């Protein structure tokens, strides 16, 4: 009976939501956490990202790697509608799960080339919790799966306007670029500099009128200084639900790091195998020529052999 009531009430709620959707506000909260078994670099990266996202809630490491659907409950507990989850495998491979919490979709990506803020030694810096400008590559709009990923980035990395800990100024930009089937992520500080006086001394005389008009006659120069962190993501799978549901996209070009490693190992083993085979071949050849004491054919006796001649 309870289930019946639930389904009925759900449908009613759904109908009510319909018209309200027209004036939807950008309201996001992100649950950030990792699985157990992450390395210190993964942890530092997670901390960096958490410090960049004021609308995030960091939680303790998740104990399980198989029952990821538990994350939905956790997200509900913390009132989060996004989940940003680091899954570490074998203490070296890092997978990033991004999900819209109650209903999905979920994207699983493989993270490579990650560099934390601390180890990069970039001179850029920004306010903790200032809202970033998100810069997307146009190729994100080309394919549906990329559009889904872009939307998730927009929700998770874009700080909503009224976020509690957000700062009022805008001083950094996050770049998402698609290259080589991977998503490259960079974070830059926006550096605004007034044009130097030496350069503007002449126009300053000529344009006092302009100053009177608005004071914005001179264009401030904008440059960027990288802050970090850096990482590269390879999308693997998109699920329809949140940590569950049917798979609606799978990247077939993705080669798992396990496979790469095993191939390297096999290649090394192959070298030994080839050498061993060569050895056997050599023995066989010698046997055929009758150069071995045991086994193989006997050497043909020539007429002019010393043993023949002086028998």
């Amino acid at each position: 009976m309870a289930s019946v009531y639930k389904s009925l009430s759900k449908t009613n709620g759904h109908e009510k939501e319909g018209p309200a959707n027209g004036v939807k506000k950008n309201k996001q909260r992100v649950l950030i956490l990792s699985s157990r078994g992450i390395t210190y670099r993964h942890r530092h990266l997670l901390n960096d990202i958490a410090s960049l996202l004021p609308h995030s809630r960091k939680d303790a490491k998740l104990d399980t790697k198989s029952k990821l659907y538990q994350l939905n409950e956790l997200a509900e507990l913390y009132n989060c509608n996004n989940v940003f989850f680091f899954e570490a495998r074998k203490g070296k491979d890092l997978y990033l799960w991004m999900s819209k919490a109650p209903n999905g979709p979920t994207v699983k990506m493989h993270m490579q080339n990650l560099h934390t803020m601390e180890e990069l030694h970039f001179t850029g810096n920004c306010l903790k919790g200032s809202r970033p400008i998100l810069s997307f590559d146009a190729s994100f709009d080309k394919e549906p799966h990329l559009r889904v990923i872009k939307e998730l980035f927009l929700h998770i990395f874009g700080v909503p306007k009224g976020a509690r800990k957000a700062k009022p100024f805008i001083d950094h930009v996050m770049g998402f670029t698609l290259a080589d089937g991977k998503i490259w992520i960079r974070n830059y500080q926006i550096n605004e500099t007034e044009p130097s006086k030496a350069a503007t001394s002449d126009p300053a005389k000529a344009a006092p009128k302009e100053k009177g008009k608005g004071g914005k006659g001179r264009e401030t120069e904008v440059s960027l200084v990288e802050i970090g962190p850096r990482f590269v993501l390879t999308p693997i799978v998109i699920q329809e639900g949140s940590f569950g549901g049917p798979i609606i996209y799978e990247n077939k070009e993705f080669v798992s790091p396990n496979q790469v490693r095993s191939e390297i190992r096999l290649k090394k083993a192959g070298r030994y195998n080839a050498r061993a085979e060569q050895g056997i071949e050599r023995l066989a050849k010698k046997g055929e020529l009758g150069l071995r004491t045991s086994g193989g054919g006997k050497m043909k006796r020539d007429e002019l052999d010393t043993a023949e001649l002086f028998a």
Partner: protein
Amino acid sequence: MVTKSKLKMALAADKGVDYKKLHLKKKEKIARKGKAKKHGGEVEPTNGKKVEEEWEDVEEESNDEGVELDEEESGSEEEVDGPMKIDFAGIDESDSDSSAGENDQNNEESDDEDEEDIPMSDLEDLDEEEKEDIIPHQRLTINNTVALTAALKRIALPISKLPFSEHQSVTTSEPVSIPDVSDDLNRELAFYAQSLSAVQEARKSLKAEGVPFTRPTDYFAEMVKADEHMAKIKAKLIDEAASKKASAEARKQRELKKFGKQVQVAKIQERDKERKQTMEKIKVLKRKRQGADTETTNEADMFDVAVDDEIKDSKASRKDRQGPNKRQKKDEKFGFGGKKRFKKSGDAMSSGDLRGFSSKKMKGGAKQRPGKARRAGKR
């Protein structure tokens, strides 16, 4: 025909289950089956009727069991459940023309890809060289465009309706093309350019909306990188600059050294040359003199001053020569001259020096150190 409780009916209506249609469908199915069996022969018509009856029974039962079963069935048969289904229908209608076109294209594409793919079993027959070029795809391509667009529709923010300051996302007009991903410099430059253009665009629209953009210089708040971290970075930068400078200096020194050696060699050669020249001149003089030996009465001639004269104009004397005076330098550095003995022993001057004495100390006027207990107590 089906009479049920209101709740169940409502549920059914919500699910979009039409009992009449269901019933009709089932009947059709049964009829078809019956026909097939007839065509197969050997089956009596009565048997078919029996089957029909049985089917109806089953149907009744299932209906009685309620909608839960139906729910399960629909769940297992389709990928989407009730409310989702409704969404789908709406979406498909809304952009039926575009999505249909896309779908067709996508299917074709995936087919093409499948043709290109090479199964692993075929791979083993190929040569090693050929293997290297081929990327084997074992996996099936899953790219459910409809589901993806549906998922996107479900979560998408209405970016076009929202003011820019609400989302702050900029998409480039042209896709960023990076010809070689492993070329670090150009790749990073492309990323930089992309972000920079985005910033310029965003800055304009934010200013238009009247959102504060630039941080005032007197606004201080916690930064992403703490002060210690920035100090570390600064130290590292300084370190780097210093090491660069030091290495440049060292290189310069090395070059100088090399050059110095060349100079030395040249000098030695010159000296040798000079020596040869003087020897030659002396020889020439000797030859000249051999003829008229006794006639010379000049003193200067007697003492062979001619040789000196001859040489003088070519070579400066040793004393006039300027250069590093090694001995003098060494003396300056290490000291030279004077006796070393009794240097440290006292003499009249040192014993007359009374700077170190004080009458206070002689009388024991200095404060005595307090006892251990007192010292401990003070603490």
